[in-house]
Each structure stands twice: as C-alpha cells, then as structure tokens.
C-alpha cells in the first residue's frame, strides 16, 4: 500500500529522516516508535505531503504523494490540534469533514452513534466550540474524524498522548477493529511502547531518522523494544 523510496529530509544540513526502503502492505497495522526527534512526525508529514522530501518519494496506493493529490480521497489523518477548526462545534466539524468526503448527514450520524462510548458523553451536544474543549477531548474528535468516509489509510500521530486511561483502552479497541479490516492500513506513532505493541502487527523503531528495528509483533517484542530503548 505504502512504498518509501530513498526518502530523506534535511533541515539546515542535518538529516532528520533517512529511509532507504520501507514497504507497508495493505491491511497492516504499522507502529512507529522512537524518542523525541526521531523523525516520526516528519515521516507522517512527508506521507501527507505537508513538507517536501529532500530526496526520494513516497507512493501511497501507487500514487506518488508529492506529485498527485489523489491520495487525499482515501486517506484519513490526525497529527495535532491544527487539524481541528476551533470555531466549530464537534458536530459541525464532523459534518464539514463528511461533506468534503462526500458522506451525507445520516452516514456521519451513524458513525458518531457507533463511537458514543468513546466520546463518553463529553463531546456531542455540549454547547462548546472545539477551541474550548480540553486537549484530550479535542483529540477524541480528531481521531474519530479520520474514520469518516471509510478511508483505506488511517494515520494517527501520538494518538494515546493526553488521553485518560479509560479512553486509551477504548481507543486501542477502535484501532484493533480497524486493523482487522483487511482493506485498512493503519499507521500509528507513539512514545508508549506497550500501547503500540498491543495494537500493531509490525513495529518500526526510528532513531535520529534511521530505521533501527523492524519487527513483526510477538510476545517478546515489548521486552525487546524496552531493552533497546533502555540506556
């Protein structure tokens, strides 16, 4: 589904990302772990054509993302709060995204109803604009919005950060359900090794922009990763 070729990103002469070759097959749930500055967000930004690669390219479903825009119709993503429109209510935001993805109001309502538990009664019908929601609740809105329109690629940057324990376990269930769908490729990045191991089939660890580990998840994966990151 996603193919990375000779990709690198250089800022002021410093290589912050350098991936020679990486292939993510369709239907895989892919976890990206690493310390701060390892290049996780840079990689996702390149994948979403928000920054330009210094060399190489990424193709998503055979579409090269920095030359064609056709990947947008099957990709759902949430990197940070700048993906939210602060002056809209959550409902309006979902309908807006729905309109852009050619979903009607009933589709959106059905999707929201199925995630009512995840929202925990704090999102819908609360008479609050997105800008006035707490960080955690903003994140819930952003994550669910990526699911609108049945995307084939879902990209979530640090989805577990800022969420309370209950919501984290609910989110894990959502991601696992997505991962079970053979048509959906999920990409998740996190600092939290345990969460990532739980929801992903495959884990790639980045360090200073380079891939340092690429493992299929097994029982020993968590231990292996923990000993790798322990100093």
């Amino acid at each position: 589904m996603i193919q990375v070729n000779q990709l690198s990103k250089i800022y002021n002469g410093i290589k912050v990302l350098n991936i020679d070759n990486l292939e993510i097959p369709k239907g895989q749930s892919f976890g990206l772990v690493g310390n701060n500055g390892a290049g996780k967000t840079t990689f996702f930004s390149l994948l979403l054509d928000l920054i330009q690669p210094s060399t190489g390219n990424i193709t998503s479903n055979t579409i090269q993302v920095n030359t064609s825009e056709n990947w947008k119709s099957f990709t759902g993503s949430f990197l940070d709060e700048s993906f939210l429109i602060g002056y809209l209510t959550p409902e309006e935001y979902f309908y807006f995204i729905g309109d852009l993805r050619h979903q009607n109001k009933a589709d959106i309502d059905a999707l929201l109803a199925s995630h009512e538990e995840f929202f925990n009664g704090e999102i819908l019908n609360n008479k609050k604009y997105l800008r006035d929601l707490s960080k955690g609740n903003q994140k819930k809105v952003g994550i669910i919005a990526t699911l609108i329109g049945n995307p084939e690629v879902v990209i979530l940057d640090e989805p577990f950060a800022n969420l309370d324990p209950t919501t984290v376990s609910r989110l894990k269930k959502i991601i696992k359900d997505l991962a079970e769908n053979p048509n959906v490729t999920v990409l998740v990045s996190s600092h939290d090794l345990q969460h990532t191991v739980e929801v992903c089939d495959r884990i790639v660890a980045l360090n200073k922009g380079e891939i340092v580990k690429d493992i299929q998840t097994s029982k020993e994966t968590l231990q292996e990763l923990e000993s790798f990151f322990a100093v």
Partner: protein
Amino acid sequence: MIKKFIYLEWKAFTRSASFGVNVAMKILIGFLMIYFSILFIGMGVGAFYVLRKMNLEPLVTINQFLIYYFLFDLVIRLLMQAIPVLNIKPLLILPFKKPTIVHFSLGKTALSFFNWVHALFFIPFSVVLALEGYDIAGVIFWLLAAFSLIYINNFLNIILSNIDKLFVVFIGAILLLAAAQYYKVFDITSFTTPAFQGFYAVKGLFLIPVLVLIALYAFTFKYFKNNLFLDAGLSKKADIAETENLAWLNQFGTLGTFLKNDIKLIKRNKRSKTTIVMSVFFLFYGFIFFGNTQQPEVMHIFAGIFVSGGFLFVFGQFVPSWDSSYYQLMMTQNIPYRGYITSKWWLIVIATFISTIIASFYLFYGWEIYLTIIVGAIYNIGVNSHLVLLGGAFTKTPIDLSSAGGAFGDKKAFNVSAMLLTLPKILLPLGLYAIGLYLGNKTLGLSLVAGAGALGFILKDKVFSLIEKRYKIEKYSTISAYKQKN
C-alpha cells in the same frame, strides 16, 4: 526586575513572526508615520495663525473643538489601539511581584503611538501660544490638563475594551451631540469650552484632570491586580456554542460546504467580526469626497472603489490566512483548491454587492455619484477580487482567531498594515479614470474603469487557474509559516 521585562519585550518584538518578513511594509509604515508626524506638527504650528487670520481667538476656538477631539480619540482607541499584553501566565509562578507585573503592563501602554501622536499637535501649538505672548504658566497648565485627558482616554480604553461594541455607543453620542449642535438644540461646547479655557485661565483648575488621571490609574491598577488569576482576568471566555446546519447552502455542493464554514468563521471570531464593522465604516468613506468641492474630481473613483470594497479590502486581503490555524487539515482533505478559492471569491462578491445596495443613499448626491460607486463595484468584482486572492498566496502571516481573552487579552486585530496593502489596488483605477478625464469626460473615465472590471470578469477562469497554480507552488512555505504561532 523591570530590566528583565524589557529584555522579554525586546525578544518578543524581534522574534515575532511578522518581524523582518515585511521589510518593505515596515519602511512604508515608517514613511507614513513621518508623514503624519509632519502633518500633525504643521497643524499644531499652523492652527494658531490660520485661526487668527479667520478673526477667531485661537485658544478659545481650539477649546471649543476639544470635546469632540477627545471623544473621537476614545472611539479610535477602542477600535484600533491594541492593549499591549505581556505574556503574563509564565510570569505568575516566577519570583516577580504582582504589582510590578501590572505596573509594567500599564506603563507599556503609556508609550503607545496613540498617546504620543497627540504631543505632535499640542506641544507645537503650546509653543506658538507662548511665543505669541500668552501667559506661559497658563499654557503649561493647559498642556498638562490636555495630556491628562489623553492619558485618561488611554486607561479608559483599557478598562472599557472588555465591553464589546462600546465604540458604537460613543459614535452614537458624538453624532447625537454634533447633530444637536448643528440644529441648535443643545450645544455641548457651551459647557465644555469654559472648562477647557479654565485650564488656561484659572490657576489650579488643571489639577482636576491630573487627579482624575491618578485616580483612574489607581483603579485600573487595582482592577488588573485583582484579576491576575488564571480563572479571572487571564481566563478564556468560553462561548455557548450552537450547532448550525445552514442546510439551505447544501444546494451549492462543495461551494456550499465552504460558504457554510466561512459564515461560521465570520460569525464566531472576534477578529473576523471586526472586519465586518470596518467594512461598514468604508461605506461612509464617500462623504469625504462627494459634495466636497475642495477635493479633485479624480478622487471620486477613489471613493467609489472604497465604498463597496470595504469587505474586500479588510477580509479578502487575508485569504487564506483566515484558515491558517487549520491549514494542515485543509491540505490533507479531499479539497480542490479551485472550490476553496471560488467560495472565498463568492463571499467577496456577495459582500460587494450588498455594500453597493446599501450605498444607494449616495443617490442623495445625484445619480452620477452613485454611478461612480457602481463602477467601483464592477471594478472590485472584476479585478480587485482576483488581485486580493492572488495576493493571498503570498500573505503568510498566521491569524490567531482564538486570541480573544479576558481582561488581558489582545482583542483588537485590525491593523494599519492591512490598510496599506490596499493602496496598489486603487492606483490602477485611479489612473484609468484620470486618463478618461484627461482625454474626454467623466463618462469616458467611468467606462474605462468599468471596462477593466468587465474584462477581468470575462477572464475569470484563466485568472483562477493562475491563482490555483500559485497557491500550489506556495503550499509548503505557507504551511511552515502558519505553523509558527505568535
């Protein structure tokens, strides 16, 4: 302690996102400031002699107008003077004493342009008064009183700025007083002139405004100090949100989706609401030029463009910066650039159209004047709307829509640089009109301008493709510029 504050302020100034980017703009503002300074000084010096030539007692005449001067000053401040905010939150837990923080924030406002610009008028005027043999002590006392009043306005603005739409009340008051005076119903100046004259003539009277100023400072200080908590003055006001569907716009497809969003954007953010108020002010701009025989006729088209173009100039100027806070979202969604630009264009066209209809009160000056406004509107829709959108590709200043805060929040966003950007859009029609006037008559001038507008309208698709291309080229640098928040 104060030294640390000044250090922080200096860093904030030199490292702000807009600093250095627009050097040309800074220079232009600099020139404009010098121009206005000279104008004010000239007024200060000249006013005395001009008034004396008109056989009026200069000081009394000035005193007569001062009440309007100060009221108008307050309105301008309420509209334009931003309250300088220290980044207070991180300071609260550091070993700064609260009074120091408040004194510094308030002291900073004293240095504002809106205060010292008055000195350019009052000081030369007072010097001339002294030179012309007025009692020097009296003149100094009068000057002190005037400055106290200016600073009273300064602090009033700080206290009152938390009340929305207050400037409308003051404008209403000014208009009412002026009308009452004009129709000789009630003359406010007959009460205020002796008071202002008293500052000069009666020794010690000037102490009243000085004392009021001191009391007001103490009040402001106390108010701010008592509100220096995260849940009081520093809190964000959360609005009660209402979900709106605006379903009637669905029939326009993607265009409707964007229009819906834009309408909400304008309605729900302080900054964008201010632009609407400003565009209403533009409507009355024509009064300066029409029916004023001292203005050259060529300036009529200038007014014509401005009257209908208020929204275009103050809102359109900042497309796509209005969407800067969620620009990354827009770039990852399935959004055709053309649909996005077209929706903004329609918004501008609708606003221009409505302005033109409202401006029909200019028919009072005759149909020729109104025709000028219609021609201006045609030009705005045909040419300026495109220019504004094209310019938007290069506008990379993020707009922080949610900056509205509590007592300390900087809520005023309308700025002088926005006005300056409009100049090039006016010079071209001015030139066309001037050519028309020079070669033939008014009608030729108007047809030239309208023709340019119509031509722009016909070429709309071509121009839009060009704009679209430009936006795509600028995409990455725009995203990275919008990421740096102030």
